[in-house]
């Protein structure tokens, strides 16, 4: 219990990391709600690799355009963010354009994207040999290393993501649930799709670099899947997913701090435990309902 008071104290040494964890835990599921509802979960395999290719590309680009890059400074992080965001968003747009054409299978599209992104990452790193170790550090996304500056960036970008998601939730719902109806209503479907992909791209690229791919994708997918089992309405689905994500992030942080566990895996494991418990309870409730009906 002492540890709980300790981490809630304003003087707590890892306070920025705790706040960063909870922000990622709350915001990723809000975005993940659409990720799950639009059946984009499989993209989770390819997008981190695209993000890595983007980071490697930004390093090479800087080296070719400006000169030898000094790794470890602040502009390097911004550069990496830009590359990660550009490649993630570009990949999302290309993948969804291919999806509309519908000639290849989902697995083929994701497999090819992964292979291309992995090959590009290695090729870009070969062109910028100093980038390798630094990129591993960036992609590891150690949230414990969160600084006041990176927390400020995370809070601003994720805050904007939340505002846009809630402000345009009827447009996002309409284009996601019934795209044809949105076209019939004369809505600018490509604009809304593009804005949603922009949000997904920004969340993934910033999430991966702040908290790492495991935490980002864990929170994008697991809390919405849990919330889907217990909610009937869109708004409550999003809010419950965000609350579950925030609770898992805080609980995971507490467990990691108390038991000296790695933070990211502790948070995702706790969120997944929630999914298992809720899933089992839902299955029992459904079974009991069927038994009563028979």
């Amino acid at each position: 219990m002492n540890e709980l008071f300790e981490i809630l104290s304003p003087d707590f040494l890892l306070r920025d990391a705790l706040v960063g964890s909870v922000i990622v835990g709350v915001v990723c599921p809000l975005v993940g709600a659409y990720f799950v509802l639009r059946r984009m979960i499989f993209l989770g395999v390819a997008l981190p690799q695209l993000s890595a290719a983007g980071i490697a590309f930004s390093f090479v680009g800087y080296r070719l355009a400006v000169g030898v890059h000094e790794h470890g400074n602040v502009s390097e992080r911004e550069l990496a963010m830009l590359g990660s965001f550009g490649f993630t968003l570009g990949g999302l747009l290309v993948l969804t354009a291919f999806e509309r054409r519908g000639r290849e299978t989902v697995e083929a599209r994701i497999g090819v994207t992964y292979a291309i992104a992995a090959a590009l990452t290695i090729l870009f790193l070969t062109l910028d040999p100093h980038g390798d170790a630094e990129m591993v550090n960036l992609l590891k996304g150690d949230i414990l290393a969160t600084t006041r500056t990176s927390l400020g960036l995370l809070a601003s970008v994720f805050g904007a993501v939340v505002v846009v998601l809630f402000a345009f939730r009827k447009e996002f719902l309409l284009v996601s649930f019934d795209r044809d109806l949105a076209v019939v209503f004369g809505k600018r479907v490509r604009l809304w799709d593009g804005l949603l992909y922009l949000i997904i791209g920004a969340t993934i690229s910033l999430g991966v670099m702040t908290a790492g791919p495991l935490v980002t994708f864990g929170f994008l997918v697991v809390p919405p899947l849990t919330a889907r089992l217990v909610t009937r309405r869109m708004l409550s689905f999003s809010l419950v997913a965000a609350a579950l994500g925030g609770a898992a992030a805080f609980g995971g942080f507490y467990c990691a701090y108390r038991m000296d566990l790695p933070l990211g895996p502790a948070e995702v494991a706790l969120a997944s435990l929630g999914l298992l418990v809720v899933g089992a309870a839902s299955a029992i409730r459904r079974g009991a309902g069927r038994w009563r009906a028979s």
Partner: protein
Amino acid sequence: MSSPALALHDVTFGYEGRPILKGVTFIVEEGEFCALLGPNGAGKTTLLRGMLGLIPILGGRVEYGFDRRTTPPGYVPQRESLDPIFPLTVLEVVLMGTFARLWPLQPVGRRQHRFAAECLAQVGLEQIAAQPFWSLSGGQKERILIARALASEPRLLLLDEPTAGVDPGATVAIMDAITRLNRERGLTVVLVSHQLRIVRQVVRSVIWVDGGSAVKGTAEELLAPERIADVFGAVAAGG
């Protein structure tokens, strides 16, 4: 004399530049109840989607008798095209119809909630507004989608196979709701169907799709038993 709700002039519809239907010319008058019929694979849904602007027009022109931007047509899709992963109540589905007349950032307010409830009442399902949409029977879902179309305050209602895969009782309820909307509210209706027996009882005109084109005529003319027998065989003509 009534004015046209929808007019097609020598229109060609198709996918990826490949024409499926050519030289389609007809007028749907305001207040008309019209069935879009034809053999399987003839292009009924293609024509409906073309009329809605969901597939490109490769030639000719489609004209609405009203401003489509301010008064979009009501559209009832095949319910299988909607993904059951979305957690939605009946009321939330119907409210989507009101989005047609709302600008971005304009909230869904009390007026929209009241109107959605009225639309639900028009299809006789106001008592299930809070129920999950996916827990309903096929026939109820279809009536909810009709209520959603009504919530966009349309002058023209286009429905894609609303009675497909539903039991006879539900079919009667759906057709009854559509017929009432046409008779009592003067709503223009175009309905894709393959159930000749049911459609024959309620529609006055038919758009017959076959052989890469479409013609419009009266129900008596285009659904004459000898003509149906030619297309589908004697069983369909009798039934």
